[in-house]
């Protein structure tokens, strides 16, 4: 199995689909040159510049162009350079991409993949560091995936492109250069399913994207204290794999959700609501969230470091949940 960086794995999935299906096109700012991080590097050279379309800085219209192309039988992949700028494309994504299949009574389909990168990395401040994925949970008709590792990045990219619905593929900039083995030809369907990365019996820690790493580190550290943590990588936020979470909670009776997005209205809230609906009586303590403080992302290193949840914060949450007992 080749070892690839997360960034190379995204390209690997994308390129595999583009080679396989001539209707897959890439649209975005600077994409013909590889984009700012090099994800689309070399694709235009291999498959032709007509398949990798550089666009002006017109996010809203470019999203609309891709939706229109999808309605006409192409399978476009749009790159929004930073998720912060998806605000400019919200109308097209929310009012057209998400709704046209439904509003048309099934006459139309929007097989669209939207690549966005998110998260805190490199002191870029509040307009280049946000995690906005939870907004899209509130829009029926959109799917949302967030790979945490190269193998999932490769597989989820393939799944997203093959899906007949608009899929938001959320990359974390801080993961781009992390490396791991990626099975050739993909590792099978990853969409719709959470992954249990570490089996445990005392606490379930469900994490998203880059927060999977501190969750695993915390589990490792806690094992030395004799605490057994089950780590679940959510991978897909819409649809959410509630079954895997409920099965885990039935075993551990305690749940902590970890994400880099701010706490209020985040994925953790949805996970907590859905899990308690099915597993409240299995729980021994309240479901906790480890998330960013309810603030815009700051720029200065000490502030930014404090903003992002880390291993210590996960460990503290595990101690807190274990100390909490039913009255």
């Amino acid at each position: 199995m080749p070892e690839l960086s997360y960034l190379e794995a995204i390209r690997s999935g994308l390129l595999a689909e583009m080679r396989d299906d001539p209707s897959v096109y890439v649209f975005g700012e600077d994409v013909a040159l590889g984009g700012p991080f090099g994800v689309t590097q070399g694709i235009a050279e291999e498959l032709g510049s007509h398949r990798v379309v550089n666009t002006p800085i017109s996010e809203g219209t470019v999203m609309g162009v891709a939706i229109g192309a999808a309605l006409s039988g192409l399978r476009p992949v749009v790159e929004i350079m930073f998720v912060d700028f998806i605000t400019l494309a919200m109308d097209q994504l929310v009012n057209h991409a998400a709704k046209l299949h439904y509003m048309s009574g099934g006459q139309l389909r929007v097989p669209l993949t939207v690549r966005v990168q998110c998260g805190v990395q490199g002191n870029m401040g509040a307009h280049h560091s946000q995690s906005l994925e939870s907004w899209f949970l509130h829009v029926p008709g959109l799917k949302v995936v967030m790979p945490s590792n190269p193998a999932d990045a490769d597989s989820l990219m393939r799944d997203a492109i093959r899906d007949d619905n608009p899929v938001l593929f959320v990359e974390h900039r801080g993961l781009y250069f992390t490396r791991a083995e990626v099975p050739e030809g993909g590792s099978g369907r990853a969409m719709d399913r959470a992954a249990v990365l570490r089996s445990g019996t005392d606490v379930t820690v469900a994490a998203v994207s880059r927060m999977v790493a501190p969750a695993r580190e915390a589990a490792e550290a806690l094992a030395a204290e004799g605490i057994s943590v089950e780590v679940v990588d959510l991978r897909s936020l819409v649809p959410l794999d509630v079954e895997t979470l409920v099965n885990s909670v039935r075993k551990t009776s305690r749940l902590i959700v970890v994400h880099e997005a701010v706490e209020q209205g985040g994925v953790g809230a949805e996970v907590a609501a859905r899990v308690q609906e099915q597993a409240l009586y299995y729980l021994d303590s309240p479901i906790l969230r480890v998330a960013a403080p309810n603030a815009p992302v700051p720029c200065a290193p000490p502030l930014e470091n404090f903003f992002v949840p880390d291993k210590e914060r996960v460990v503290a949450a595990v101690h807190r949940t274990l100390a909490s007992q039913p009255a």
Partner: protein
Amino acid sequence: MNFDTAWKAGIQGRSGAENMKAAKQGSAKPATRHDDSSELLSLLRHMWVIRAFEEKVSALYAAREIVGLLHLGIGQEAVAVGVCGLLDTDDLVYGGHRSHGHAIAKGADPNRLMAELAGRFTGYCRGKGGSMHIVAAEAGFVTASGVVGGTVPLALGAAFAAREKGAGRVAVVFFGDGAGQTGPFHESLNIASLWQLPVIFVCENNGYAEFTPLSAHTKVERLAQHANTYGIPGATVDGNDILAVRKAMGRAVDNARAGKGPTFVECLTYRLRGHYEGDPGKYRELSQLADWKKKDPIARFTRVLKRRRAASAGDFEKAESDARALVDAAAEFALSSPWPEPEETATQVCA
């Protein structure tokens, strides 16, 4: 010409798929050409279908048989028919919130369209879309939208795909003067020009963006001036003169099919009804309305045809009475159709 096929399909009750198949039998003709008398009469008939359809919708709305937020294009029929009459079924049309006429002109089945407005399961969208979200995919009417200017970028995507497929198809988008002040409108003109896409921008400048005259929204009097800025050929025509619309549109379609890029056609027109049904319309002078009624596109075109002796008095009467009969049948079909079951509410959310 899908036009006559659609007309016959409506009368004979053929399905939309048959309608499309029949339309495909004729190959794409050059859009710029002289019209013979039968073709001209056919244009008049189609304007009458739209007029009769919307008058029926207005009456059904007043009778509470149709609910919702309805925007009628009565008075603007020459644009819809002038534009769509030059397109084939495979050419893709996008509309806006005032698009019943565009869909009919493109060949949508009046029965299924009326059923959609009435919220019935037999409607094009099973009642999930409604007046502002019409989709008649089989006729090449891709979608309307409740967002002003929202479909302009979508049409670029259709044009991009058409160009990549190399089938000589064109995309057309209808929008109003109000869309001319949105960001995506300007971004779209820029991209269409930059990529030389086979898209035709049809601006129905009816002088009012909702309740406010154009002069209160922009210093730019003619929307076609924007086309000039972005290097797109543009023309402003009398939108109540169907032959003027058809002439400008013919050039635009020929250019787009020949790979010569986009065109902007601004059609000056006027809606004879309010912004929406129920709009008291206090922002407009009655004298202005009266002036525009004199320029009614159907009456005007009828006068032209009479002058040219293109049809008999009986033909003119029949054009209207056939249209009204067709629309009465559509209303009956719609109102006798079943409502969607409540269980349908959360179906088709994902493909």
